[in-house]
């Protein structure tokens, strides 16, 4: 029952594990990356259906990775959910300006995140 491929990006292993677990339990195929550069590369190579992207990461941060994805015509249509410990309004605004489709602040509820993923994939498909 493969519902789609999700790229999950975070430099925290614990977060990758729990997202892998939660999305996997819902029937998604999960691939992971640990920094922004790897995220953009995997987005191009693996063509995921959706990207969940942490913001504060080494090498390239989530905002920049998001912009890179949205600038690349080949993959610009992939929905991106930013998942960030930066919780202020200005941070959210910056996220949407970078082209994010959704912005979720940490700490977050894995259940709610899965719902948003469902939602975005449904809108995208229709």
């Amino acid at each position, binding site marked *: 029952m493969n519902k789609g491929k999700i790229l999950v990006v975070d430099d*925290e292993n*614990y*977060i990758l594990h729990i997202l892998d*677990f939660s999305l996997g339990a819902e029937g998604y195929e999960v691939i992971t990356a640990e920094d922004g550069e790897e995220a953009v590369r995997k987005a191009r190579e693996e063509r995921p259906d959706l990207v969940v992207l942490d913001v504060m990461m*080494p090498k390239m941060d989530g905002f920049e990775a998001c912009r890179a994805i949205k600038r690349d015509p080949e993959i610009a249509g992939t929905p991106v959910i930013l998942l960030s*410990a930066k919780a202020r309004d200005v941070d959210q605004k910056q996220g949407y300006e970078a082209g994010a489709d959704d912005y979720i602040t*940490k*700490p977050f509820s*894995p259940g709610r995140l899965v719902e948003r993923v469902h939602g975005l994939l449904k809108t995208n498909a229709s």
Partner: protein
Amino acid sequence: MIRETTRTGAAPAEVTLGVHAEELQIADSVDRVLQIIERAVTGRPGVGQAALHLVNSDGELVAARPLQGPAQNLHASDVQLEGIARRAFREGALVQQAGVTAESLWAYPLKSPERIEAVVVAVGAAAGLPGFLAQAALALYRERQRSGGESHTHAMEERAADLEQALEVLDAIVREGGTGTVLRRITSAVAGLPGIDRATLWSLRAEDGRYVEAVANGAGGPTVPPEAQRAEGFDTWVRRLPTWADFRWTAGVPNHRTSPGRGDALVIPLSSADKAHPLGFFLAQLECGLDRMDVVEDLRRWAALGRQALESFDNTGHGVRNVEELREEKEKLSELHRLKSQFIAAVSHELRTPLTSITAYAETLRSSPGATDPETQDRFLRVIYDESRRLTRIVDDILDLATMDSGRVRLSCRRVELDALVRDVVDVISPLAEERTVRATLPEDEELAVHGDPDLLKQLLMNLLENAIKFTDPAGSIEVGVEREASAIRVWVQDDGPGIPADKLDLIFERFYQIDGSNSRRHGGSGLGLAIARSITAWHDGRIWAESKSGQGSRFVVSLPRLRATSRQRASEPTYDGAPVDDHRVPELVIEMIGEVMGAESVSLMLPEEDGASLFIQAAMGLPDEAIRVARVAIGESISGTVARTGVPILVPDLGRDERFAPNPHRDQYRTKSLISVPVKRREEVLGVLNVTNKASGLAFDENDLALLMMLAERVSLVICKLKEFGDSRDDVQRMEEALRGVIDVRRHYYPSGGFSRLVIDVCRELGLDDQATSKVHYASILRDVGMTRLPEGVYKKPTALSAGDRELIRRHPEDGARMLRSIEFQSDVFEIILAHHEEPDGTGYPRGLADGTIPVGARVLGVLDAYHSLRSGRPYRSAVRRQEAIEELRRNAGGQFDPEVVEALVRVLSRLGSSEAGKQPEEAGNRS
């Protein structure tokens, strides 16, 4: 019967104070506590005129709130009241003074664990009040703490705003090429303050010591008649706190009044930055009676501007220097502010990270149908547990750091054997190191003790080792060692991890900093370990830095002073130990400075008791606390007592063989072999006695050491007098501390003492300088690189050749040094040598590019000797050369970089030293300047 009466008479008052004491318990603001104090004081029978002096956020005593007790007939002048309040503030103890009438005048400082919070001064009976006031002090402290964080930030912002304004003024002076316009502007700004009618600015005219209007005032503002200026005490009067005067100057004398009203003038004194001399004052005429506290605070800021302007008035060079200093301070403050916001953002991120894992796993555990098998549940719970512990650790570390930063650490210092400590910590940490090997390299039979807090030092070492473990492969190895230096002990931790890039060596001590930009979770730990290590080191007056060569791992080095000085107060009040700014620190730093400069095993400063019959120890190092507390020497007896009486120094190269002194049965006990005792004098008056015993090198003290100690004693006299005069101005005290710390630092951590001084003296003599000039050069040679202590650690220790930027930084050190020393140095020729020791005869040196004849001879000597030592001892990036090669190199550059006469004098001195030493190690480890 009489006894009965007394008891009933005292009882009601006791009850009242008891009620006030209860009120203190529930008071919920600083203002509330102040009100209670006021009511308690003014309600005491037997108290007449009184005042409550407050201490502002800068730790300065500010103007008083006048109070009146029930005894209407007891008066004293404002000057008297203020004088005694200042004394109590300075001395930190109840001061009582018999008044003109039979009633006594007293002042009581309200001391909290941190500082003096306020001073109450009154005419009349003090009975019962001190006990109550001691409680009030704690209540004030409590309430101040409660509003603490906020007011600290507030003070910082206020200070930044002040500096901003001061800079504007100075910029305007520079731009407009004169101070006239600026002074006019400031004066009209003062006149424009609410409640102030007109204002005039008066400046001191150097020629006749009269005050004249600095800005012509056509509007007929308040004025000071010439006869008032001639009145006795006028000079001291205008240098006091902002004070009120009847501006009509009744009978030519300023008329002090307790509560000002319309037509009165406020006098705001302006004195030079070091408060050593008056510059002038503002006279501000009031429109109406005002609450004095508010206006005084407002005016203080304008006074600061007026001072800046007046100072640049008579000495433009000085003014420009001030711009630099102010700019520096302002930048430091904005940087602090920026760091603080950054820190809060970082903390919030660091706390959110583990919290995110905890909530995500907990929620999944609770609601996900997939998480029901025991194995998954166990795995999830373990993550929750680990992350909770991590969270706790971060919170603990933040609290530790906050405590250390706020200056409220109570160190419980004692003798700590660092080798034993290292062994303990390695035992504890080895299990955590898993496969990695942790090895301790400890020298045998060496004394490796420091004076410090054993728990904090243990934490310091743990943090360094944990850091090393984090950055080492599981198969890697870590080594930890302890080494003894002349006056410091070094502890180092070496790992074989990836190393640290040169430009990051300083940054890694910043909170939450990670070289790869990741958050600290990636490497485990809180991200605060090194920041805490740095704080602990600073609390022990030590230094910490990292060294690293790519591919060879990193080495963290902590250098801790071997001996610390202790003041008598501290020896008797252990709870005050470690307070960062307190009144014992300056005498202690003086002692440590002398210890470092003289290379002595013990140093003590003795002052006469009030009765003038004996000496007590004000501060000492290398002596047991017990001795510091109880030691008394009768004036006229034994060595220091004789020096105190005669004012003549005594040098004892070898006590065992000296026939002047009777054999002392206790002598062996103290193992005193060699000692010098010199008087500390102000003109002919002996203020105290300075003793040093036993050179750490084991050699005997000689005439050169005596000459040096005499020079130091003159500086000590200056410091003592300054402390007496403005002991309550934190700015001055801080400047002295900075200077003393600089000298200690430069001796302790930059240049181990050695043969350099010997060469300086010999070369000076060879050049025909007299004893006094030689001593000055010798003394300046010790201080010459004080400015280097302001460099970032990395620059000095860099293993590679210096970059252009580093060189630029280093070129500032002569000026920085001269500036730092201003508060403890008074001889201009010493300044000149320090300032010019990098000038070169062909005019290519720095900072001023002086040529040939204009460079002081002392500076030329140091220029040659610095170069010689640099050649002989090598640099991290260049190896050492032999004596003959060094001489040839100097001769090649004689006339250009070096003074040929000095080079040849050095050659003659070296040849006399004999060929036996030619192949030996350099005379002294070199420096980099």
